[in-house]
């Protein structure tokens, strides 16, 4: 209404059309944000501490609601094809819906892990859950953005909430340090991203992805400088969010310092949001200029694969190891991006979905092993875990082996599909580097597994870990771990449904009909 008034007031300016808002198209985002607000309000009124973790339950319910909101949209997209809403600013296609579900799952698992963590650390309140839901809303926004500004807003909503989450554990110095580092570097890279948006806007005359794509397809730019520099700066922003080398330096420090269940969300949900944006902008929108950006993504992928694997091997802190390994995984997903084909996108989506369970589960175990204070993450803390808690060790071993890409787990297929996509796209050397890096990083996962299983057969007197108390696995965390293991093995055995779904989920840019 205000805009309408302004339009009438201005002379000679065409009246601004306020876009119709298709609420149904936004329903996943609305459920997440609405759930966050409800949680915040109710949390302020209800007692802060309770024996049943209803904050976590409510968060899981909101995540479930998000997935439920996706179902009718998916059906509609499946029947009538993808569509766009809110003046072509938000796209509803298989791609955005697929990533939405992945993010919702990441939220649910992380929330279940957070419950036990907050109790153990004596923290309280619904705020972590609220922030997680808001962050997820931002990630979903990135996945469905059809406009670079919406993409930027999604990126900021996602990131700002996670900056706070990183510093959640106020009493721990490391948590605070992680938050500052993440915040400073994150806002730094966001500025680059925004500058990239500005340059692309200047070169193409629009921030809308649909219009940019049409413009690029229809016109040959006499001077590509602006556009190309814009690509580079956008890539900096995305590269930072997905933790790709050389924009990875925050990852190990932030992952190590942040509360473990939050890292579970960062490594799964935030990463999924970042990759969704990357795929949407580069593959779907800048597809006609792929020859310009493919070599650069190629280089970033190679660096991520190598640096992630090599640096992970020399770590002794398990959280840091997993942080570096997540850089390595980012490299693998970038292989799918680099291919810039439907196979590549499908492979990247499959990888994201499979990786969400693996990494969230792995950090779930890390949460439990960290014990009170969240500080027991050295490799030694895992010594002989198999003997003390065989089930927990087995679960962790499954996550690690899946990340290593052992057959019959989802990780194997994920790696298989990206490498296949790379080979189909004739990137043989990249495929080779990927395989070598998989071998190197297998060392690291095997190292943790060996440490857990070492000393399982000998007498108690020689075991340095003999006197340690049994680790308590909260019921909620146990549920999360079981779900993650079931998904990791299940996808590995019967990948067909996920593969088919991922194949239906390539991004398509469609202008709004309204």
């Amino acid at each position, binding site marked *: 209404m205000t805009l309408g008034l302004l339009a009438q007031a201005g002379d000679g300016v065409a009246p601004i059309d306020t876009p119709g808002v298709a609420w149904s198209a936004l329903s996943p985002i609305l459920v997440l944000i609405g759930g966050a607000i409800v949680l915040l309000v109710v949390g302020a009124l209800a007692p802060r501490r309770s024996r049943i973790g209803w904050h976590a339950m409510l968060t899981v319910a909101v995540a479930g609601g998000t997935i439920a909101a996706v179902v009718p949209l998916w059906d509609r997209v499946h029947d009538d094809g993808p569509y766009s809403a809110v003046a072509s600013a938000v796209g509803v296609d298989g791609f955005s819906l697929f990533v939405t579900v992945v993010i919702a799952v990441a939220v649910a698992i992380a929330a279940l892990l957070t419950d036990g963590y907050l109790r153990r650390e004596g923290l309280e309140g619904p705020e972590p859950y609220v922030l997680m839901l808001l962050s997820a809303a931002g990630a979903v926004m990135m996945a469905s953005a059809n406009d670079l500004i919406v993409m930027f807003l999604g990126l900021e909503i996602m990131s700002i909430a996670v*900056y*706070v989450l990183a510093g959640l554990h106020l009493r721990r110095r490391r948590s605070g340090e992680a*938050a*500052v580092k993440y915040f400073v570097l994150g*806002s730094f890279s966001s500025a680059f991203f*925004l500058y990239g948006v500005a340059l692309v806007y200047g070169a193409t005359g629009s921030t809308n992805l649909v219009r940019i794509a049409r413009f690029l397809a229809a016109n040959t730019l006499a001077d590509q400088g602006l556009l190309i520099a814009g690509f580079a700066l956008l890539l900096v922003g995305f590269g930072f969010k997905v933790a790709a080398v050389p924009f990875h330096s925050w990852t190990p420090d932030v992952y190590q310092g942040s509360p473990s269940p939050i890292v579970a969300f960062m490594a799964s949900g935030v990463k999924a949001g970042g990759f969704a944006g990357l795929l949407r902008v580069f593959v779907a929108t800048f597809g006609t200029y792929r020859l310009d950006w493919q070599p650069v993504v190629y280089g970033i992928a190679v660096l991520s694969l190598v640096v992630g694997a090599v640096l992970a091997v020399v770590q002794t802190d398990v959280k840091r190891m997993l942080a570096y390994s997540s850089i390595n995984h980012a490299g693998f997903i970038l292989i799918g991006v680099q291919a810039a084909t439907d196979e590549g996108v499908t492979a990247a989506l499959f990888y994201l979905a499979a990786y969400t369970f693996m990494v969230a589960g792995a950090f779930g175990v890390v949460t439990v092993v960290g014990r009170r204070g969240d500080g027991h993450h050295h490799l030694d803390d895992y010594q002989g875990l198999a003997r003390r808690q065989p089930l927990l060790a087995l679960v962790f071993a499954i996550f690690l082996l899946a990340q290593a890409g052992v057959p019959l787990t989802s990780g194997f297929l994920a790696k298989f599909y990206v490498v296949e996509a790379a080979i189909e796209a004739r990137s043989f050397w990249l495929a080779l580097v990927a395989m070598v890096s998989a071998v190197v990083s297998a060392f690291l996962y095997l190292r943790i597994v060996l440490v857990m299983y070492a000393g399982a057969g000998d007498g108690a007197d020689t075991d340095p870990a003999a006197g340690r108390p049994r680790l308590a696995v909260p019921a909620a965390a146990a549920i999360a771990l079981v779900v993650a293991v079931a998904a990791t093995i299940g996808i590995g055995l019967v990948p067909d449904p996920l593969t088919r779904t991922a194949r239906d989920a390539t991004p398509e840019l469609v202008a709004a009909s309204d």
Partner: protein
Amino acid sequence: MILAATPISASWYLGLSALLFTVGAVGLLVRRNPLVMFMCVELMLNAVNLTFVTFARELDDVGGQVVVFFVLVVAAAEVVIGLGIIVGILRRRPGATADDLSLLKG
């Protein structure tokens, strides 16, 4: 007046905003006070705003000007969160510089 005769073209504004962006980026790299570093980020964002406005005028497109409002809101949100985080650290460790925060490394 020669200056008045030469019209200030869009590339001057673009150059200025690029310069401001660089000043912000370099400032973040060389300053040690977390608050000043954060101000540098704000400078970078505003430099981008200038770019947006310039392009909006060049392209005769109101979209670019609207973007500025979004960016301002985002910057405000970043300020709230950033100050919260930085002040939280400074209260526990008065006078801490960015370089003092190097517990996590390797």
